[in-house]
């Protein structure tokens, strides 16, 4: 990155360690380096339990690193940053609020006037295709629809940095494909820097500009692969493209090595 355009997200020599209940020191991240440009879509893949979610927590300001530095646009992360949006793996929409109330939550928390927040929220509800469901509660919606609520809830805050923690892993394959398409469209308009954690390599390649493969715990960046597939991408057909397959094969070899190592370690 040049000095003129600071990275949206930058992790330098970051370490995050936990004390387990049995008193052992567990290292989730060690000497972790990664940098993501503004507007870039970066995906992270790695063996299960390698510390992918920990990384997102550090960037979101939900946790602090024991060593190293996490910066957003050259500013050190110190608590939750307003420019960050986070889409969780599990349902994190508020079950006691209807769709409108959920989407409005962010602006209201941030002090936007109620009627203005409502206008914005209605607009976002239309954009994610939930028009007509404003008054429904989450338990009345399908998993895919709840994810749409979560996306609207996040995008309404206009995040410059968007963190996604396996957001679509609980969805069935067809719904997942639709949501991936939807995400790419929203991202093309919002132009936020995205860090997308997934265990699904295909998903990572379909969506991202770059895919970072992590090592088994303690996690480091093992390799970064640039995905030079043209945009806009057609999620439904791209995975049968020869270029896609070539990239997938290359990254898969890298990933497999780590998965096997992780298995041997346990």
């Amino acid at each position, binding site marked *: 990155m040049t000095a003129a355009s600071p990275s949206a997200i930058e992790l330098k020599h970051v370490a995050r360690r936990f004390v387990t209940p049995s008193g052992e020191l567990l290292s989730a991240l060690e000497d972790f380096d990664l940098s993501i440009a503004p507007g870039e879509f970066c995906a992270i893949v790695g063996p299960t339990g390698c510390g992918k979610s920990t990384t997102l927590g550090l960037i*979101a300001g*939900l946790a602090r690193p024991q060593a190293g530095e996490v910066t957003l646009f050259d500013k050190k992360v110190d608590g*939750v940053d*307003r420019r*960050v*949006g*986070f889409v*969780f793996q*599990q*349902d*994190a*929409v*508020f*079950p*006691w*609020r*209807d769709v409108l109330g959920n989407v409005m*939550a*962010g602006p209201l*928390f*941030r002090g936007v006037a109620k009627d203005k927040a409502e206008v914005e929220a209605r607009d976002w509800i239309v954009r994610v295709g939930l028009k*007509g*469901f404003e008054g*429904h*509660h989450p*338990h*009345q*919606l399908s998993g895919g629809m709840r994810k749409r609520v979560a996306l609207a*809830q*996040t995008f309404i*805050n206009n995040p410059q940095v968007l963190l996604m923690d396996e957001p679509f892993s609980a969805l069935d394959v067809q719904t997942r494909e639709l949501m991936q398409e939807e995400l790419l469209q929203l991202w093309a308009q919002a132009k936020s820097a995205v860090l997308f954690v997934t265990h699904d390599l295909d998903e990572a390649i379909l969506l991202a500009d770059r895919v970072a493969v992590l090592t088994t715990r303690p996690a480091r960046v093992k390799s970064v692969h640039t995905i030079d597939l043209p945009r806009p991408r057609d999620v439904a057909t791209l995975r049968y493209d020869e270029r896609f397959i070539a990239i997938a094969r290359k990254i898969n070899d890298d990933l497999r090595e780590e998965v096997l190592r992780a298995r041997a370690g346990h």
Partner: protein
Amino acid sequence: MADSSITTPLPADPKLETAIERMRRHDRLVLTLRLAVLVFLIGGWELGVRAGLIDPFFFGQPSGIVVKLIDWFQNGTSIGPLWKQIWVTIYEAGAGFLIGAVMGILCGIALGRNQLLSDVFSIYIKVANSIPRVVLGSIFIVALGLGAASKIALAVVMVFFVVFANAFQGVREADKNLIANARILGASNWQMTRAVVIPSALSWILASLHVSFGFALVGAIVGEFLGAREGMGLLIATAQGSFDSNGVFAAMIVIAVVALVAEWILTLIENRLLTWRPDATINE
């Protein structure tokens, strides 16, 4: 219904209808069986007395209890009109319940949200909770006199700990994902408490309110037992003093009716507050 099925994603399909029908049938069965149990118990009791197996002097007699109740309603009790006694007890239990519940909820949320407060006070609350609280009634009578205040104080003590423990637990059980989400969406600590913590603790708190109204009644009645000028507890104590077991049972039934009505009201409130829950919607 036809109109709303177009705009709502929840289809009003026959499957839902049969599910409701099945639920209703089940409810009817339960009601019938409950009545059967009641008839069996009370009939057995009455027959037992008539056959000479049960001594009505000690254990009363259903028909005698009914006669007593009618007498009380028509001619008043030995300590004054029945309505007055019921009202006094409801007033004491209700006031104690409200005060205790509000205090319990506030303290539970405060300690649940603040680690330091909870570390400091949890030990004292454990100790206070282990004391048999009914004993405090004697102190309250001495300190606050024979009037309503001492009964209300006892009811407060009875209610507080139950509600507190539940509110505290409810706050602690709040979903970590929801809390993280609210924080990232920009919630301040106070907004978090209002938007996430209280709603998620609400089902715990409401559950505890069901139990604790019963405790408030116990507090009020025991207080009246220990020393009072009016109330259902005094009525029972008077009946006991004159070896009137039918009177004791009659007073018990009156109290039970009060408790059931309160329970019903609480359930209404609960369903009102928890409409977002899946099961609450089905009941509508």
